[in-house]
């Protein structure tokens, strides 16, 4: 990374274009509106710092946001184990399907969000998550199976 210098206008448009979709995606994956908004803005900060070096900022932002979602879930898991409760908790409302979705591993949850909210194909999901196309189907099926088990 040569520097975080960049020209503002292009990034402003990029931010405006990507913001809502990225936050919605992150919200579905991490299950917490505030955390999703924060991690997406942190991701924009990452992209901004590398703006002059990134030729395709969209896919790069996708990767950064998903990595931060993954990191957030790991952190939530650790905190949950340690009895830690966030200062601001976004889970005031509980519904079984949503709660069951939040209990899934990252890959399953992300694949389900990309399929059932963004209507992506297996190939698109694989490209977005950076995985083999053959992994997508099993993740979705395992995720759905686990949801059925949890709801039964």
């Amino acid at each position: 990374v040569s520097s975080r210098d960049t020209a503002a206008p292009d990034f402003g448009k990029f931010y405006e274009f990507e913001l809502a979709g990225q936050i919605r995606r992150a919200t579905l994956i991490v299950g917490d509106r505030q955390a999703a908004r924060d991690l997406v803005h942190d991701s924009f900060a990452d992209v901004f710092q590398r703006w002059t070096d990134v030729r395709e900022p969209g896919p790069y932002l996708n990767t950064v946001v998903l990595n931060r979602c993954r990191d957030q879930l790991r952190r939530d898991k650790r905190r949950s184990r340690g009895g830690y409760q966030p200062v601001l908790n976004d889970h005031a409302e509980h519904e079984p399907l949503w709660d069951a979705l939040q209990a899934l591993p990252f890959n399953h949850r992300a694949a389900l969000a990309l399929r059932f909210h963004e209507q992506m194909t297996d190939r698109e999901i694989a490209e977005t998550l950076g995985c083999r196309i053959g992994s997508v189907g099993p993740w979705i099926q395992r995720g759905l199976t686990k949801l059925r088990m949890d709801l039964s």
Partner: protein
Amino acid sequence: MNDLESRLTAVMQRKANEADVSIDSRFRTGDVPTVPVQDVRTFTHRWVRPALGLAAVVVLVVALVAVSTRHDPGTQTPGGGSTSTVPQLNVTTNPGPLMTTSFTPDQAPLVLIDQPGWAITYVHGTDDLPLGDLSTDRLILVGDGPRYDAPSFQAWSVTPPQGYDLTSYGQPVSIGSISARIDERATDPDTGLSGPVISLAWELGNGRLANISAVRIPRESLLGIAAALDFSSTTPTLPPTPGFTKVDITAPPTWLTFEYQYAQGKQTVQLDGANFGVLSLLSNMGGEVRTTRTVDGTAIAFRPLPNEPGRYRADWQLGRWAYYVDAQGFSSEDEFLAMLGKLKVTTPEEFTSFAAALNPLVPGDRLPLVQELEQGIQLPSNTPTAEWPVSAVASTRSEFEFRFYFGIGCGWKNAWLAADTANDPNAKAAALAGVQSILTKLGDPQSGVATLPSELSTAMQSGNRDAVSQQGSNDCPTWSDGLGT
């Protein structure tokens, strides 16, 4: 689509619609939203901030790798402890008010709020961050007058992204014979404080762009200053400008940052610190218009937020350390300023006691923990330590523990991939055994700390290279001399 899938689609649609997609208040809004370069760091300063992101993970693994490369692999046995030594610590042991206590750049203060009822809810620190992220190739001027009411000026050059179109930015303006673009705002949209806040950009003719960011400098004066700039060297230069002083932005020996969060009832406070002097300060303040307040004789840049009742922000700089506070739930400005006066630099012992619920690691605690974490696990051949870097900042045991095992797991992942490439089944089995030794040590494979080792173990047992390769994703280091390579 079956019933479950339909319900899933519906609940996701509803939850997505509930997402908070508003533009961050620190972004300027308008027809063409812009993000001044120096504002970008403020995105990361907010409540319930995720503990550590990719960069921090990389920092830790960098530390692991840095350590590993100093080790003689022949002296390490699986399960053996570190033979580390403890370098001299640089943590202050002189308690006092944060507002009036200066530190050298290699000292990170441990801070608490010295008022009954306050608890610390988050502790995080980073060290050895790559200084490349903070370019010193920048000309910074501050004007005469009260420090945070005074004009400020920054100039630097950038290489724009491919396809960049300068004409999409702001309005056209002429600087002598130069055709430039200007974005001007009379007031700060969040605080209502008078600016102007002006950004200027023009093409330098060598593929780079000149950038100017200024606060409280009238347009015509700014254009005059801009016309005198010389961009022929990496850092722009300017003849002495009456009413302005050039600011020294020498890099510190090590870039340190810390982040503490506190709570008392509905009141919350976030305190960040960074040791890069005025660059750290301006990274937080950016193009925001501030005004000066004084706490215990120290001038602070105060940022009222009339549209967010109860919320106050402030920045200040003492020596090489710049501080940033974001507070919520305060009934008045006076109450907020009084709280700032209660920020107290404390000793490692008192800090440990104050933050006991978080199981903190203060500088000096890391080595014994590493020795404890190493016990009973197998390490990649070039991992172990001859010397463990002592952090100059505070963190928590759980986060360090997670990153330690994450780093070791990444090392075994790389070892497995190398063995797979070499078609060496024995080395692959050794890598799997190494990962499983972590799980055995942790006991609970479902624990958060065990996330990567657990998933890695499953992937390794499947024999699927792609499945192993994607573990750790981009969080694992990619350098060639890393763990297990």
